[in-house]
Every structure is written in C-alpha cells, then in structure tokens.
C-alpha cells in the first residue's frame, strides 16, 4: 500500500465519486437529459399530472422497500432491496423534476422563503389526497413474501409501461423510461426468482407466498385501469394506456405462477375509488406522516 491511503480526510477534498459502491447520482436529476421541450399536441397539465402519477408510484414503493433496510432475511436481501428502492427513488426524482419543467403550476406551494426544490415540494408538501399512486404500492408488507409478490406485480407492470414509454413523444419521459427499463428488468427478475423460490422451498414458505398473493392480488386490477389523464396522454403519443399492457403483464405473471406451481388467480373487478384520483388507504397517510415529518418541521431548512 502507498501512504496516500493514510489520509482519511483526502475524501473530503477530492472529487473522485467512483469510491462509492453503489453510485452517486444524487445531484441535479435532469442534468444529463438534454432536450426538455414539451411535445406538441399534448396538454402540459395532463403530461405533468401523468409524470407525477408515475413518480408517486415509484416514490411510495421505494419508501416501502426502504423499510426493509436492516430488517431483511439476509444481508444479500438487504443490499438488493435497497438497490431496488434506490432505483425507484431515482426514477421518482427524474419524473418529479420533469413534471415541474412541463407545468410549473403543478409544483405544490411551499412556505414563503423555503429553499425546497420542486422534487421535494411534490414529495414532502402534498397530503395523501394529492398523491396519485396506485393503491398496490402503499400497503404495508406483512412479511418478505408480501414484499416480493408486490414487487413482482409492480415491476412487471411498470416494465411493460416503460418499454413503450421509451418511444413516447416527450424526450425526457422517453429518456427516463429507457433508463428505467434496465432497472425494472432486474427488479422483475429478482422478485420473480424469489416468488418461485418461496413457492418451491418449504411448506411454510409456500403457504406464506400463497397467502401473500391473496392479500396483494386484490390490488392487481387497478394497475390495468385507465385514468382519463393516462388516456389523453396516451392518445397524444406521450404516454402509455395501462389497459394496453394488461394482457402482457398477465402473461409474464403466469410464467412465474407456473414456475412456482401456483394456480393462476382470477381477475378481479377494478376497485373504486382509486389511487389515481387521490383516494388512498390509511397506510399512505401514515407513510407520509413519517416521511414528511422532518421536512415539514423545518420548512425553511436547508438539507
């Protein structure tokens, strides 16, 4: 070893961010995305609202996954779940930043003099009724089986959406989607492997994964329900109609159920009211109360 490693404070002055194991993409989320013009033929308010929907799904699920940190069944799962949570958090940040550039009016108001950036205004200064995530992402995990079954559903659905959004007319959303596809393919694979492992592992694990699927499955239908905003943005060529990916998602899930020797659950009616309209369970209210507690206690704070 050379003596350069003897100065632990070197890191305080040096600019070599490659030293961090899992990347450092924490600064200006839109910095790498060039063209930020809003495409023609799409209502900016709709497009911003659409970006917020996709962002809210990612932020809320990221938060639920981050709750596993230091609580996972093994160290490898601690690392993997944190990785997925970080990916989704990154997607949420890009999408909030995009919503703010499309429609500055959509950025929630913050207290006078607050230095809070737009992404944090969306995350920390909206109440549950203003969140537009699907219900599936907000529920609490009862156990690890819940976590992987839910992740399988969300990742399969989101991957199908993002694959199409890559070809959408908004250059920023298309770029976000291109990045997200690589991440979500891993998330889906990770979750699918665990569902099969649990289904074919022990009697106990099979019982648990079946129970988890029963609990989670009632939120499946909402993923395929098209909100008017999604419909208009999809028609304008800037977004994806979730109904259009529904069959593909079912086909992917069926492969996993088959590999795990699990029966194919029947489709359920779309629940109402729905998260895309701001209707949520208490689980989201509680989640936000915790998530927003420090930011709201110091509305003029700098972090």
């Amino acid at each position, binding site marked *: *070893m050379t003596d350069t*490693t*003897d100065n*632990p*404070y070197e*890191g*305080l002055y040096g600019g070599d961010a490659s*030293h*961090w*194991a*899992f*990347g*450092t*993409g*924490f*600064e200006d989320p839109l910095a790498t995305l060039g063209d930020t013009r809003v495409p023609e033929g799409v209502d900016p308010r709709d497009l911003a609202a659409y970006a917020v929907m996709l962002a809210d799904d990612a932020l809320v699920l990221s*938060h639920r996954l*981050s*709750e596993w*940190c230091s*609580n*996972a*069944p*093994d*160290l*490898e799962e*601690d*690392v993997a779940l*944190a*990785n997925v949570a*970080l990916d989704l*958090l*990154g997607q*949420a*940040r890009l999408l909030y930043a995009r919503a703010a550039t499309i429609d500055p009016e959509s950025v929630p108001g913050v207290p006078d003099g607050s230095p*809070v*950036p737009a*992404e*944090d205004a969306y*995350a*920390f200064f909206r109440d549950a009724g203003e969140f537009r995530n699907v219900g599936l992402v907000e529920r609490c995990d009862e*156990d690890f089986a819940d976590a992987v079954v839910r992740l399988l559903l969300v990742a399969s659905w989101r991957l199908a959406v993002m694959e199409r959004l890559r070809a959408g007319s908004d250059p920023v959303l298309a770029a976000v989607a291109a990045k997200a596809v690589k991440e979500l393919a891993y998330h889906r694979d990770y979750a699918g492997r665990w569902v099969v*492992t*649990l289904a*074919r*592992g*022990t*009697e*106990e*694990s*099979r019982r*648990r994964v079946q129970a988890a699927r029963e609990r989670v499955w009632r939120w499946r239908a909402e993923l395929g329900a098209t909100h008017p905003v999604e419909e208009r943005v999809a028609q304008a060529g800037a977004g994806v109609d979730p109904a259009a990916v529904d069959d593909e998602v079912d086909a992917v899930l069926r492969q996993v159920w088959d590999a795990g020797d699990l029966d194919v659950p029947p489709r359920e009616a779309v629940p109402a009211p729905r998260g895309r309209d701001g209707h949520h369970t208490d689980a989201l209210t509680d989640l936000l109360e*915790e*998530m927003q507690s*420090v*930011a709201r206690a*110091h509305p003029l*704070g*700098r*972090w």
Partner: protein
Amino acid sequence: MTATAQETELLADFEQTLARHDRIEPRDWMPERYRKTLVRQIAQHAHSEIIGMQPEGAWITRAPSLRRKAILLAKVQDEAGHGLYLYSACETLGVSRQQLTELLLAGKQKYSSIFNYPTPSYADVGTIGWLVDGAAICNQVPLCRTSYGPYGRAMIRICKEESFHQRQGYELLMTMMGGTDEQRAMVQESVDRFWWPSLMMFGPPDAQSPNTAQSMAWGIKRDTNDELRQKFVDMTVPQADALGVTLPDPALAWNEERGHYDFGEPDWDELTAVISGDGPCNAQRMAHRRRAHDDGAWVREAATAYAAGGGDR
C-alpha cells in the same frame, strides 16, 4: 521430524513472512492464536457494520429531502456490503457467517460501542458520517496494510467507501449550518453528544489495552489506540472550526511543543459500561437484529431447500 520441530519451522516461516511485510494468506500456516485474534477482530468489525445500519437506517424513512434519502439509503446499503466483505474474509479463516451471527446474537462477540448511542436528530446522520466514520477511517486505514491478506484487501475497498460517507456526512452538517438557527443548534447538539463516544471508538488507553502489543507484533494492528486517537483529534479540530461548531472539551488546545492538540480524558467508565452491555441502546440494537434474523429464518430455510433440489415439498 517431530511435530514440535515441524511447528518451530512453520512458525519461523510465518515470522519471516511478517518481517518482510508480506501477507499471510488463507492456505498459509498460522499460529492458532493469530487465527483466533483475527476472527475476533474481523467478526467484531463485520458485526459493527451490520449493527451500524440501525442508528442511521432509522432515519431513511424520514430523510428531509429526496436527495438525502438517496444518499442515506445508499450509505446504509454500503454498510451491509461491508458486512458481506468482512464476513467473507472471516470465512477464509474457517468460520461461517452463520456461526458468527449466532455468536453475535448470543452476546459472545461484540460490535463497536458507538452504535449503542441513540440518534434522536437528523443531524446525527451527518455527525455519524463526520465523526464516527472519521474515527472508523483512522482505525481502518492502517488495516489496509494488515498482515492477513483477505482482511487487508477488504479494508482497502471499505476505506474508500467510508471516506466517501464521511464527506457526505460533513457536507450535510455544512449545509445545515447554512440553514436556520434551529438547524445550527441541532448540529451543535449532535456534535456535543457524539464527540466523546467517538474518541472512545479507539478503545481503552494503551496502558489498559492488553491485546495491543501482540496484535502489533503480528502485524494485525499497526498503531496503538492512543496514537490513533491523537491522529483523529488533530485531524478533526480544524474540521470543526471550518464547520463552525465547538467541541465539548475545555481542555482542547494546541500544544506547540508536541505539535499536537492536547485534549481531555474520555470517561472510561462509560466505555466499560457500554461495552459490557449497559449503554443506552444495547438492548434495542440486539433485539432489532435478533428479530430481523428470526423473522427471516423461514426465507433462508426456503432458499436452502430450493437450492438443494427444488424444495422439500
């Protein structure tokens, strides 16, 4: 050749390797006490990484900005990764991660005393980065040159990552100091709480550290506790000045003659109490780890059964 003669020859080889500052590798012969000392030290370090996920991890769900949430989550994830490298290094000495985890949960192996202190404020996330990771780096940088190969190589990577964590922590405190009066007060209050426990991270004074001499002779340890503590103080005081916080030690003063800072004596009774289980959060940290371990047992069993051939159902 008799067993004893053979052992004498092996010991001579081992000592020559150390004298050349070469590494001892897993397949090399090593004295049993050397192996045991390494297992104890590496395991303690690995456990510290894992238990150390808790005090900061508790703030992930409350991080006050999305950028801070990402930084904190990535940092705690790195700690899990460090635990993995270190348990792997320990496995090269013939002890499995499962055995080590059981020893931790049974209270037979320790982790760093610092993680038995509470983290009641978000400023603690920054202070842990600056002071706790800073002290850890001072302890760990010399270990990059430790005599046991797998440990030294794990430490090189860990030190690089730790120095990044430290920079992030310091940057959080710096940002908060540029915020509101309330935030500045949070930073000062947090530094006041963590200063003395950080000094204790280097262990008892040299005169009361029975293992130091042997560990240095074996090239496991490269500096004494007091030398490292002094180094940490000397590095940290200018950092505190730049940050605009005071360190809670009236005896802290530059000593021109020594070329070092003089500083007060930590409360060693407190260190003894925390190490022997009576710190503010010992019970909570262990209960958390035990619960996570127990809750995950069925998942690990399922993975084992599945890997063994499609499961046992």
